[in-house]
């Protein structure tokens, strides 16, 4: 996977720099003194703020959307700074070049990259400030700095000398930032690797945590926006007379994406919006429906340009010819919405050519640059503050609602909070694209695969979002396409098809469709060979110790091969994603087509872990997210209109449907892997394989609804 990782990184780096000019290059003020109630604050580097009253604030350059970076990023800094993690404060970074995510080439939270990007950088950031504080103390006491050490917020010296970080901060912040610093041997870690209590939990159990929807600016008014029912459509005319006469309505304004009602309260704006009459040019998507999306994708699979994923191995065509048996299958992963619980919203205050933006975003750099561009103002006149995110999952990488809020505030000249309804959110998403996977294998006389041909046809989010040139491999469509199994002849191909849908990155992105296909197919091959799916996989992992290890651990923990109560069956699946090696076993029963997932066992090797408790939480989270995807969710359209509007027709797993989870984490000294996403993708084939084992019927199109299972 390393070549894909590299190309993904290089691509985003060059594209954002070349096309958007998004790197703003204004770092936090170095050593600038700010008078605050909390004391006078010093910033020795971009990661650590120290007030002279000893309040220490550590910076998270990543947005907190549930995945725990509000705790894990400061843990990495605190490990080297030598401060008590429970005593520090946390701030989310503003847009600035220093906070760019090197794995994605932009200031983005996504792709399960936060720990992987921050692992060394944040420890260096903490160590730099520690060394600066020690130097400041050495200068003050006129002693050799080698006689000093930093511990628990204090610099300690000979003869019992001690000085708090706060008392040294002013002097330390004037010193040059050391280029080279020594980092601890991981065996000496005191914070990293511990089950540290999340720092955001207290605020999230008493209503004080500030999400975007909770932002309040002085004089703020509220907006609700009517957008074209067909995504991409434009306003041709509108009549706001009736809406303007309704209680609390202050103004009705047209912006690029629609018509916004601005009122003294959200409810007044929302109610008056229903009184609008808007005429639309529905645009090219007005004739689109999900049947056409599938038909177009299938046609493209036959005739579209084929882009190789990696290099073919051996000679697939020859090996297929000589095979004792050929097995073919086609798998379909439907379009899906993100459905984060906090509907899209942002607060904007435009005044005298400057704008303040406050809200939930995964893409500070994009919001900053795009709003400046759309409003025609200088980047330095855009101030962006990030709140907690009520879920992200990729939806808050998009900037549509931020631009809308900015344009509405500019039009009415007041601070405005724009809030979408759930229906707005569901029908105006950037949807996970449909995935069509066609897989074929040749088996030898013993039923073992001698050749594998894999083709995925889907839509490129990267073309839309970052201007990836046509006929170029999109690495975010090829994830988990090449599985671990040792097969002598393999070929993996990608076909990119623009279906006309507005598509977006969705938790685990293309791991979802590709792992569903690969791992379902592996079970189909085992069945064709008359072999146990676990043993069949193991036989193909002789030189893949990390894969084999997690597969074995998951199977053992789940009691693979042990008897089950009547009506229950297990399914197994294996994948690498985000440098994390993972196996899962799902245990299900099926009654009248209705799937119950009783238990999911996960074994994960993600190298070094920052906070194992958060790792477990992310795996639990991913299982629920992936289970909703596997069993319940599909976006369909009629005349360009998305038909799912709320959680009644786009369900999410609820408490009574949530399975028990058993999680085995491998102790490892490998470099850290990402954990926010992989289990989301892998639970889908684990469930699908268990359902096939339980029913004897293979369903190759998701979701596995009762209807789909009964018809199989």
């Amino acid at each position: 996977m390393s070549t894909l990782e590299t190309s993904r990184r290089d691509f985003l780096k060059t594209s954002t720099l070349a096309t958007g000019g998004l790197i703003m290059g204004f770092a936090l003020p170095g050593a600038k003194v700010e008078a605050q109630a909390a004391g006078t604050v010093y910033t020795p580097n971009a990661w650590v703020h120290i007030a002279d009253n000893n309040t220490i604030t550590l910076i998270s350059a990543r947005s907190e959307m549930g995945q725990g970076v509000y705790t894990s990023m400061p843990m990495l800094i605190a490990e080297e700074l030598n401060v008590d993690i429970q005593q520090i404060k946390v701030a989310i970074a503003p847009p600035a070049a220093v906070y760019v995510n090197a794995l994605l080439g932009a200031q983005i939270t996504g792709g399960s990259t936060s720990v992987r990007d921050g692992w060394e950088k944040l420890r260096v950031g903490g160590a730099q400030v520690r060394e600066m504080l020690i130097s400041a103390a050495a200068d003050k006491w006129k002693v050799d700095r080698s006689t000093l050490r930093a511990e628990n917020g204090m610099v300690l010296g000979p003869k019992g000398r001690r000085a708090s970080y706060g008392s040294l901060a002013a002097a330390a912040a004037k010193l040059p930032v050391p280029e080279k610093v020594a980092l601890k041997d991981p065996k000496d870690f005191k914070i990293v690797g511990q089950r540290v209590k999340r720092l955001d939990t207290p605020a999230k159990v008493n209503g004080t945590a500030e999400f975007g929807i909770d932002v309040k600016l002085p004089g703020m008014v509220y907006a609700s926006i009517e957008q074209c029912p067909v995504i991409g459509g434009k306003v041709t005319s509108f009549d706001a007379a009736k809406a303007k006469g309704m209680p609390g309505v202050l103004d009705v304004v047209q912006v690029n994406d629609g018509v916004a009602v601005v009122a003294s309260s959200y409810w007044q704006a929302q109610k008056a919006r229903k009184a609008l009459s808007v005429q639309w040019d529905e645009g090219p998507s007005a004739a689109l429906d999900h049947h056409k999306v599938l038909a177009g994708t299938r046609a493209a699979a036959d005739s579209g340009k084929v882009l190789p994923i990696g290099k073919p191995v051996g000679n697939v065509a020859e090996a297929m010819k000589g095979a004792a048996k050929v097995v073919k299958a086609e798998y379909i992963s439907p379009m899906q919405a993100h459905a984060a619980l906090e509907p899209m919203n942002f607060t904007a205050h435009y005044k005298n050519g400057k704008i303040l933006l406050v809200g939930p975003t995964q893409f500070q750099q994009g919001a900053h640059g795009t709003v400046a561009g759309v409003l025609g103002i200088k980047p330095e006149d855009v101030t962006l503050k990030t709140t907690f995110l009520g879920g992200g999952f990729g939806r808050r990488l998009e900037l549509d609602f931020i631009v809308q809020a900015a344009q509405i505030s500019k039009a009415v000249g007041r601070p405005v909070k724009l809030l979408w309804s759930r229906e707005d959110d569901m029908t105006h998403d950037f949807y996970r694209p449909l995935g069509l996977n066609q897989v074929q294998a040749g088996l030898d006389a013993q039923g073992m695969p001698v050749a594998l041909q894999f083709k995925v046809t889907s839509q490129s989010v990267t073309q839309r979002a970052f201007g990836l040139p046509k006929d170029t491999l999109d690495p975010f469509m090829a994830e988990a396409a090449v599985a671990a199994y040792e097969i002598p002849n393999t070929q993996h191909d990608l076909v990119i098809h623009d279906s006309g849908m507005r598509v977006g990155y969705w938790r685990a992105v293309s791991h979802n469709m590709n792992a569903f296909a690969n791992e379902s197919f592996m079970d189909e091959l085992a069945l064709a060979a008359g072999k146990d799916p676990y043993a069949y996989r193991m036989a193909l992992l002789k030189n893949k110790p990390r894969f084999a290890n997690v597969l074995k651990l998951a199977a053992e923990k789940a009691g693979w091969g042990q008897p089950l109560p009547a009506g229950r069956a297990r399914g197994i699946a294996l994948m690498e994603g985000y440098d994390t090696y993972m196996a899962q076993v799902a245990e299900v029963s099926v009654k009248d087509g209705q799937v119950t997932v009783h238990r999911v066992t996960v074994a994960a090797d993600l190298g070094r872990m920052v906070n194992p408790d958060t790792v477990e939480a992310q795996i639990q989270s991913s299982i629920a997210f992936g289970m909703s995807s596997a069993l319940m969710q599909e976006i369909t359209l009629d005349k360009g209109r998305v038909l799912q509007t709320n959680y009644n027709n786009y369900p999410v797993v609820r408490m009574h449907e949530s399975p028990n989870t058993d999680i085995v984490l491998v102790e490892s000294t490998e470099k850290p892997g990402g954990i926010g996403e992989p289990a989301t993708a892998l639970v889908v084939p684990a469930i699908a394989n268990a359902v096939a084992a339980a029913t004897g019927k293979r369903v190759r199109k998701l979701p596995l609804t009762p209807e789909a299972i009964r018809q199989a």
Partner: protein
Amino acid sequence: MSIKLNVNGRAVAAKSEPDTPLLWVIRDELGLTGTKFGCGAALCGACTVHVNGQPVRSCQTPVESVAGKKIATVESLSRNNTHPLQKAWIKHDVPQCGYCQSGQLMSAAALLAKNKNPSDADIDQAMSGNLCRCGTYPRIKAAIKDAAASLRNA
């Protein structure tokens, strides 16, 4: 014209139009933003508050329908996280994004007010109206049991 309510033990006179959902009176007029908006259709439970002790979806409750009644929001549990449910939520590090948790806590509080020894089925029954997109259900369940135990031993 105003509608008299008792919110978290405080008498308030709501000035919003009578058909305004209680959710928006609580959030925008009274400034108690712990209660969240998720679906506007009583499908997700993020807006759960208590009306005279019963859990209700405030997004579907016109303020005029609760005139004179006692409303309790997440802020009423405690400001300093001393309520047994808040303590249990912290112990189990339940929240992820946290957006649904106010509603989860209020549904759990209503459950424990009438049942201090809930079974798994009781918990499923009481909590199935509260969505968590982050899937914190296993921890919610564990935290409810923990809080119930501490209430029984109190």
